[in-house]
Structures are given as structure tokens and as C-alpha cells.
């Protein structure tokens, strides 16, 4: 095999183990060396491409799928099919009117379920600069002013199909979860909501809802007030 063909083949695939490549390497030490170098280069390439994957990516994908499945449960029989079709028809009308289809009635219920599903973020320990946080907040017409709280996680998440911002703030004893979502989420809004462990409060600002979820045992009972004061809102 001539040198140029060999090099082209190895550049295209350093792990080419076809018989003619093996023979060429056995016949010519320089070729074997070149192949070895290119394999090393590929290892470097592999390392450079090995981007960090967000934590719990698989879990979040499975969560979206289970929510998607809840929207259109599998029909078991023809009898049930007819029944389910008529129920779905009604659900369809209602959910279309509300702009969202899922099994949650209120924003609060959804927020608590979301919080529980992604509870792992409450132990995250990321550091963000004021500027980084404000870039994320800018899409919602909000920004933190100077005395901003310690945010340990901030990322985009979805309320059904509605893009929202998910943040975790480290309090003295318990983390506090914040969701910032557009007001027109299609779900019913309730000012207060709770489950066994968490209390939630919903504050409406401009075109957004600020949902603040705190642990029931958190001694600080004025989180909602403090946090809503650390935001500055711009009107579009």
C-alpha cells in the first residue's frame, strides 16, 4: 500500500483494522508508528469531546415521558376506547382552552411535583456571578439587584411545555426552590399550596409567576417577602 493511501485511510479512521492495513504496518515500521500516533491523537480528541452531561439528564427525560404518557393513557378495549375517547375529547377541550395538557390542576401541584422530581438539585453547589444570573433572568424581565441570595442551582426547566427558570437558594437550614414561569401557563393559580413537607407561595409580577417553595420546618417564614424584594422587574 502506498504511503498516501495509507495515511488517508488512517486519518479517516485510526482504528481501521482491515487486513491490508495490518499487513502494511507489519511490513513498514514507519507506518505502524504513524498509526500508533494517530490513535494517540484520537484519544486526545475523545477527551476533548467528552463534555460534562447535566446531572440527572436520563431521569428528567423519563419524567417528561411519564408526563406525556399521562396525557394520553393507553386504551384497553373497544368499550373503554369509546369511553376514553369521549372523556379525552372533553379533556382535550378543557386543556386546549387552558393551553396545556397534563394531570395537574394548579401551578402549585405541578411545582411541588417538579420540586420532588428534581429534589437532587437542592444539594447542588454551583456558584454564579450576578451577571450570569441576570442573563438567565433577563428572559423573564427580571434581575437581581445587589443584595442577591446565594443561588446554588439555576437552570431552564419545563412546566409541561412551558419554559421556566428553576433556581435553588441556600437558606440557613433548608434550601428554597424558586420557579419563575410565565403567567399564562394554562394552569390554575393559587396563592398558597403545600404538601406533606413543603409550603409554596405564588406571587404574580408583570407577566410572570414567582413560585417559592420552602420546607415546612424552615424557621425563616418570610422567604417570599425577602426574595420578591431582591428582584427588580422591568416592564416590556
Amino acid at each position, binding site marked *: 500500500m502506498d504511503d498516501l493511501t495509507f495515511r*488517508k485511510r488512517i486519518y479517516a479512521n485510526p482504528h481501521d483494522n482491515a487486513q491490508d492495513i495490518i499487513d502494511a504496518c507489519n511490513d513498514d515500521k514507519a507506518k505502524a508508528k504513524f498509526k500508533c500516533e*494517530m490513535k494517540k491523537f484520537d484519544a*486526545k480528541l475523545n477527551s476533548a469531546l467528552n463534555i460534562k452531561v447535566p446531572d440527572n*439528564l*436520563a431521569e428528567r427525560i423519563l419524567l*417528561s415521558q411519564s408526563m406525556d404518557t399521562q396525557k394520553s393513557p393507553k386504551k384497553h378495549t373497544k368499550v373503554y376506547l369509546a369511553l376514553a375517547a369521549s372523556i379525552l375529547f372533553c379533556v382535550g377541550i378543557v386543556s386546549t382552552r387552558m393551553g396545556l395538557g397534563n394531570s395537574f390542576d394548579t401551578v402549585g401541584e405541578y411545582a411541588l411535583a417538579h420540586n420532588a422530581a428534581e429534589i437532587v438539585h437542592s444539594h447542588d453547589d454551583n456558584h454564579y456571578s450576578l451577571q450570569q444570573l441576570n442573563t*438567565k433572568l433577563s428572559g423573564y424581565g427580571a434581575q437581581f439587584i445587589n443584595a442577591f441570595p446565594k443561588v446554588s442551582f439555576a437552570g431552564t426547566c419545563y412546566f409541561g411545555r412551558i419554559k421556566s427558570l428553576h433556581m435553588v437558594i441556600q437558606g440557613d437550614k433548608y434550601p428554597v426552590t424558586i420557579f419563575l414561569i410565565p403567567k399564562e401557563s394554562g394552569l390554575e393559580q393559587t396563592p398558597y399550596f403545600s404538601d406533606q413537607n413543603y409550603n409554596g407561595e405564588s406571587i404574580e409580577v408583570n407577566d410572570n409567576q414567582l413560585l417559592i417553595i420552602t420546607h415546612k420546618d424552615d424557621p425563616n417564614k418570610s422567604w417570599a417577602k425577602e426574595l420578591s424584594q431582591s428582584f427588580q422587574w422591568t416592564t416590556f
Partner: protein
Amino acid sequence: MGNFFRPTRVSLSMKTKQMKYEALVRAYSDDLYRYGVWLCRDPHVAEDLVQETFLRAWRSLESLKDQGAAKAWLITILRRENARRFERKQFDLVDIEDTFVPDTISVGSEQEVENHLLRRKITELEPEYREPLMLQVIGGFSGEEISGILELNKNTVMTRLFRARNQLKEALEAKEQYRGIENG
């Protein structure tokens, strides 16, 4: 009526589908995300793309007959979703960095410098060279599989792979040479 109600069979096939789907998500979501980041050069968009890809995969899981082709099937869905993003035009993004160079899993500092340079060069590669390389290195696909995914002739794929590696290697060697002069 006995034949009419078949709940056991139905719920079993649903369970099988769910198991198959979970296995796919766990096996391929990381690689799909990495591929997505290099495809659209934005980690947030990449995550959305992967979410959308798997939702579509769930809805048409029945069409996947050959388990061995699962990864190529998912990559094809992801590429289609990415193309759709351009058709829609206004994909509501908040924070796009102009020169995005993603973080990799942390390694030693010397390696990190080299990685950073390589990553920058990879983002600078023409997409037609970058994509087959990503499919080969991240996806582990063969030349034939890449030509199937990209709908290109295999020779074209091999030439692009050759050019992509050639450009990257030259860039890295130029840097080493420069460093030599600087130190000498």
C-alpha cells in the same frame, strides 16, 4: 366477552415498551446530549433537543424493529429536530454565548490546555467536516453507518473524516511548534 377484554396482554406490552424505552434513555442520552452540543453549540438547546428526541422516540417506538440500529435511529431523530429548529426560526433562547466552548470532564491542567485548543478548533471546523467526525468519535459509528445517517456516499464520508482530523492535527502541531519557539 372473554376475547374482548385483554387487559393482561395490553398491560404487558405497555410494560415491555416502558422497559425498552428506559433502557434506551439510560444507554444513549449522554452520547446524544454530547452530540447535540457539538451539533448546535449550545448546551441548553442541546438539552431541549435531546428531550424532544426522546419524546418523539417514545411516540414511535413501535417503528424501531432492529435494536442494533437504535442509536442511529435516535441520532436521525435528533438531526431532524435540529433541522426543524431552523425552520421554526424563533426558538426562544435566552442566553447564547457567541463563542461557545463547552466544559469537559475535568482532567489534568496540561491536558486541559490541549483540550481547550482542540475544542476551539472543533467548533471552528466546517459543519460538513465536524458532523461525520462527531458521529465517529462520540457515536462510535462506522463509515457505512455515518454515510447512512448523513445520506452521503461512503467515500465522501471518509474524505471528510480525513480532512477533519488533518485540520485538527495541523492546528495542534502548529501550537506545539509555537510553544517550542517560545520556550527556546
